[in-house]
């Protein structure tokens, strides 16, 4: 171990109470930031999960559609018009909208119905039953997370939507909505009936291109042929949807604000303890100056202290984060941790600690080496 690291670690561990306070400050700050950013990531994923799972090269939506859950409708004629555009291999209509699910014990609960053909958006992560069970004329697929909410216990249960029969034909795992409104998958026609929309209206057209077709050219030709629609790539639609929910509603700003506050509080706590530690060791730093050390040498000692705090604090915070992620995995809005987020949080911890060290560095920069003669 280098002498700088040894001096830094000994300075850090010498006052154990202060060291514990520093670490608690870092841990709480990082856990808070992790939860906020983890929720943000989770929210972001949920907002775009339908778009991510829909097989489409291009999305045709009503003009000005803000997000996937937007109830705006377009004419189903766009399907035949789109199919006539060179380079289009298939165009799958899709409808989405809210409906009221009758609970077996009475009352209703809102659901979000998604209807599409077999080449469109179909449920995934099936854990029971078959979504396209032709024996059941009113078959739907729901997620097991919402069983109690929907008053059902699994495949074979039935109820009504708009007084029309509903049979649960398949069950998924983990298709959850950030709005907490359960998703109900079915085919296009049944969805139109449940939502109560005309059979010549759809929400989206999922366009599949022929192999080798130029997406920009097809998009341009579609735009020329279709009126009052937006044509977007999945990425563009994902971004638009995400921007609406995260920033248009203020939800993202709240999560980011929480994360920022966590980082600021953590920085202040670490700065306070590092400043206090440096103040206690001023004579030692003055001695270093007296024996000819450069300012940079002393700065390295302080930064090393800050980095040690960062590594220890982050390691403990990571353990707590892991527990939080496991604990919320099955909740409506799980906290998500990804390798880039983990790396980013470590970087943030290091930056917080180095920023905190600045106050201490300013303090020792002004130190008078001659003070060693006065003590």
């Amino acid at each position, binding site marked *: 171990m280098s002498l700088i690291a040894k*001096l830094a670690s000994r300075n850090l561990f010498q006052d154990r109470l202060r060291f514990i306070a520093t670490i608690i400050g870092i841990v709480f700050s990082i856990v808070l930031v992790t939860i906020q950013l983890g929720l943000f990531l989770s929210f972001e994923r949920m907002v775009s999960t339908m778009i991510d799972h829909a097989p489409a090269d291009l999305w045709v939506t009503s003009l000005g559609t803000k997000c996937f859950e937007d109830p705006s409708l377009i004419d189903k004629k766009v399907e035949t018009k789109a199919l006539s555009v060179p380079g289009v291999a298939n165009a799958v209509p899709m409808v989405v909208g809210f409906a009221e699910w009758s609970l077996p014990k009475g009352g209703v609960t809102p659901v979000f119905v998604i209807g599409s053909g077999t080449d469109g958006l179909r449920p995934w992560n099936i854990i029971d039953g078959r979504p396209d069970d032709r024996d059941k004329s009113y078959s739907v697929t729901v997620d097991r997370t919402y069983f109690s909410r929907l008053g059902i216990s699994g495949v074979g249960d039935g109820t009504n939507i708009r007084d029309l029969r509903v049979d649960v034909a398949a069950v998924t795992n983990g298709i959850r909505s950030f709005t907490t409104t359960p998703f109900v998958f079915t085919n296009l026609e049944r969805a139109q009936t449940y939502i109560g929309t005309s059979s010549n209206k759809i929400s989206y057209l999922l366009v599949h291109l022929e192999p080798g077709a130029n997406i920009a050219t097809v998009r341009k030709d579609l735009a020329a042929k279709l009126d009052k629609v937006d044509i977007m790539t999945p990425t563009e639609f994902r971004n638009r949807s995400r921007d609406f929910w995260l920033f248009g509603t203020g939800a993202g700003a709240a999560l980011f604000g929480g994360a920022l506050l966590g980082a600021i509080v953590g920085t202040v706590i670490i700065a306070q303890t590092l400043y206090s530690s440096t103040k206690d060791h001023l004579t*030692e730093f003055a*001695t*270093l100056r*007296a024996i*000819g050390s*450069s*300012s940079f040498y002393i700065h390295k000692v302080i930064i090393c202290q800050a980095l040690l705090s960062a590594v220890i604090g982050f390691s403990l915070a990571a353990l707590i984060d892991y527990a939080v992620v496991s604990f919320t995995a099955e909740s409506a809005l799980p906290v998500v941790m990804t390798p880039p987020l983990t790396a980013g949080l470590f970087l943030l911890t290091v930056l917080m600690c180095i920023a905190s060290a600045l106050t201490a560095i300013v303090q020792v920069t002004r130190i008078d080496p001659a003070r*060693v003669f006065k*003590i």
Partner: protein
Amino acid sequence: MNEAVIEGIDIVKKLGSGAGQVVALRGVSLTLMGGELTLLMGPSGSGKTTLLSVLGCMLTPTSGVVRIRGRKVNGAGPGTLARLRRDHVGFVFQSYHLFPTLSALDNVRLALDVRGERGSAAIGRCRHVLDVVGLSDKRNSFPRELSGGEQQRVAIARAIVANPSAILADEPTGALDSANGQAVMSILADIARDPARGVLVVTHDTRIVPYANRVILIEDGRIIGEEPGGAGRREIRTLYPRAAALQLTNESGGPEGRRSGTSRRNV
């Protein structure tokens, strides 16, 4: 012929500002020669430590010239002064100023580490100087495990390990009993036998006069006299009217007069 290690010429140092300003040094000139142990004696507030700080490049003089190994250091910034201290000066302090969390060996290593000297060669040098000061069996002891005398010897090892031209010591025996004080002064006197090194000791303690080549007396920021080393209580009293206030005690354990005859009168 021995060369001048540090020269201070007509040094004036004012501390503070406005009505609270104090003139700590009023035109002091002093040359520390290689191969020489010089004592700087005077009462509290006489300017001893200020002069030591100026000569050791810790403070810049208000006016006057400081030269280290012939190089004028006036006008140097804090970084340059730190480099000059690193390259030419070793300090020994009354309260040792050892790092309590580091072993004796690591405390000595610090003086080389700040110069960028690391590795086994550096550690070997540190071990050697600890041997020189008689602490070969205390290398791994922490300051709290050492007596005051041993701590001061570690401080001396730290001061000499980088082979500086000048050792400046501020009351090195001030916190020690007679035996330890004699031991510390004996080591400093040995260091001063090297013609390339000069040792300047600020002290109140007349017991250590016998170790000096010369004694310089300072009062009210002015040098008021110089006497060859080895002088006893009576001579110091003669030169220095406030000697009684210094609680001078003439312990008889030192090698009285053994280093006389090499002083240089330049006061």
